[in-house]
């Protein structure tokens, strides 16, 4: 029996009311974005918005609940952009999307900041709490280094930084580590082992299950092999963008006993039928005869902030419903 767990990779859109309230309170310019020292008024809006998205996830019936990363104005670059020893410079394109973030330039040591832990601590008691963090390689890729001097030192420092951050987390069930840069700008052969070590450093700092989720496509096979060397509990696969190569990676190199299956499109408003999601899970299982999955996290392939609020909520609902998964075929597990 496979355990199907309904989850999301976080990075939620703000509720529409919070979009306007925060735009009015904070402004629209580069200098108005979150820097970790926001006013009480702004904090209060984020608290209400966080409660709202948590309630909405409970209402949908998701097995994993995230705090939504609603403060992450700079998306995955957030933990660096709010750091005291990081300067933010120009607005630059976020991957190949029509989104932009402030370039974080690391100008001093990446000491512990506690920013992500503070947001998680404001959640209160929620069962199935899941933390979401940027993976060390994606942070490395999105940032510029003016402190550590070489790539190996910089990626190691980011790994240590993230390990420090999660050591302050309250008790969480799972941690999803988002790593789109592993797909979009894969590390070369010399850097790939260092990336794997950095991911290991982060994963070793917690007792929670760690899911490393790359997206915007499938991993290059070598990068996939290196990722499996890291002491993580699950690997995520973006079956929406590139199902064939994702499948190839699993069949050729194996995977962990748990996977996160990105089978709901985080970047398209078309809402999947629950039956379609089940067919996609069936397809993955049927076509990976050598694999035996203990757990499949059914999730969206990317963060959900790309969507308008109504469609985002509809996606939460279908993901939750998809965890009611009946075994329709005899599998090898």
């Amino acid at each position, binding site marked *: 029996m496979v355990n199907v767990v309904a989850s999301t990779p976080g990075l939620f*859109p703000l509720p529409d009311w919070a979009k306007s309230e925060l735009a009015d309170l904070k402004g629209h*310019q580069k200098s*108005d974005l979150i820097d970790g020292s926001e006013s009480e008024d702004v904090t209060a809006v984020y608290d209400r918005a966080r409660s709202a998205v948590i309630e909405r996830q409970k209402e949908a019936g998701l097995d994993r609940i995230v705090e939504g990363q609603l403060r992450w104005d700079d998306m995955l670059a957030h933990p660096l952009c709010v750091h005291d020893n990081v300067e933010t410079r120009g607005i630059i394109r976020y991957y190949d999307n029509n989104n*932009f973030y402030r370039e974080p330039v690391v100008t001093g040591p990446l000491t512990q900041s506690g920013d992500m832990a503070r947001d998680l601590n404001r959640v209160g008691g929620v069962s199935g709490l899941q933390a979401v963090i940027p993976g060390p390689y994606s942070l490395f890729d999105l940032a510029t280094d003016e402190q550590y001097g070489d790539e190996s030192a910089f990626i190691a420092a980011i790994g240590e930084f993230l390990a420090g951050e999660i050591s302050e987390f309250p008790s969480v069930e799972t941690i999803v580590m988002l790593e789109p840069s592993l797909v979009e700008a894969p590390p070369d052969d010399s850097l790939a082992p260092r990336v794997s070590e950095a991911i290991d450093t982060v994963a070793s700092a917690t007792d929670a299950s760690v899911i490393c989720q790359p997206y915007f496509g499938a991993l290059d096979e070598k990068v996939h092999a290196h990722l499996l060397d890291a002491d993580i509990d699950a690997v995520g696969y973006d079956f929406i963008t590139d199902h064939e190569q994702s499948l190839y990676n699993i069949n050729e190199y194996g995977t962990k006993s748990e996977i996160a299956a990105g089978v709901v499109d985080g970047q398209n408003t078309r809402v999947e039928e629950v039956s379609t999601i089940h067919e996609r899970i069936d397809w993955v299982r049927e076509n990976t005869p050598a694999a035996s999955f203990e757990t499949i996290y059914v999730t969206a392939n990317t963060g959900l902030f790309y969507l308008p609020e*109504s*469609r985002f909520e509809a996606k939460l609902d279908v993901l939750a419903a998809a965890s009611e998964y009946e075994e329709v075929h005899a599998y090898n597990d």
Partner: protein
Amino acid sequence: MLTMTDVREQFRPEDHPHDHFLLTTVVGSYPKPKWTDRVRDIHDGEIDCDASFDEDHWQEAADDAARLITQEHERSGLDVIVDGEMRRTEMVEYFAHRIDGYELNGPVKVWGHNYFDKPSITDTVEYDEPWLVDEFEFTDAVADRPVKVPITGPYTLTNWAFNETDRTDEALATDVAALVNEEIEQLVSAGARYIQIDEPALATTPNDHTIVGECLEVIADGIPADVRLGLHVCYGDYSRIYPEILEYPVHEYDLELANGDYEQLSVFTEHEFTKDLALGVVDAHTASVEPVSQIKANIEKGLEVVPPERLTISPDCGLKLLPRDVAYGKMENMVKAAREVEAELDAGTIDVPARAMQADD
């Protein structure tokens, strides 16, 4: 057979003071007067207000704003003007409301607290009512100068939308291109002679120039030869699209280059620029007015790429995010700079490197 120069010369004012003619224009959008935004909010019910305010009132306000900004453009001395897109909201959203097959589901984030109503394409796209004919006819009637019509291009209209259909993104873009073609035919019947296709999504994704090229073939099909077609592109990596774009069936390329301090200019000098260049000579993202001397130096950058008879002078991009006085100041200084450069060209005191380069060929 009309030459490129003829298609351009129709816009030379009768009282133009110089032999040389550097056509001055703008990309399109312009800051809306505050009252226009507030009145729209009241009309859309976004502000609680007891005052009765119906569709006719809104039309009257939009006409007033369009008249005001059209005249503001003329006052700055521009040769070809627009109405500052006073009736339009956002460059994709405005058209999504008018094309059957598009649906709007609410705002999505671009960056920080900047959002737009990114539409979803859920069905076959079809042409219903004209998009811009009323806008053009009004502007043309109140303007003394020729009017340019900016239209968001099919690649951007599909690339910046969610595709919920079973059509590929490329096929959808071609479908929308056919609608743009129909709209341009209507605009031309109404008297439009200068159309600018805005494709900010171009040059952001590898090989997208092929899709845009196919779309432009559809767009230009059957459009009379004396109608000037331009293509506006901004903030991309131009080396991805040049020189391939020279094959497009348009007369002019309007490019953002001032914002990057002309770092990408060399892309266009490596291979002869065989069409007209509308050069961005003022930055649409800095809220200070460049001095005339600075703009003149920028115009001379354009003369490295094309000779003066193929150089159009324009801001980098739409000016709508600037304070209105700064936007006006940029237009005014831009025109002054162009007129001074024309006088110096007449007097033969400015070099035209592009001409020397062509003579060498």
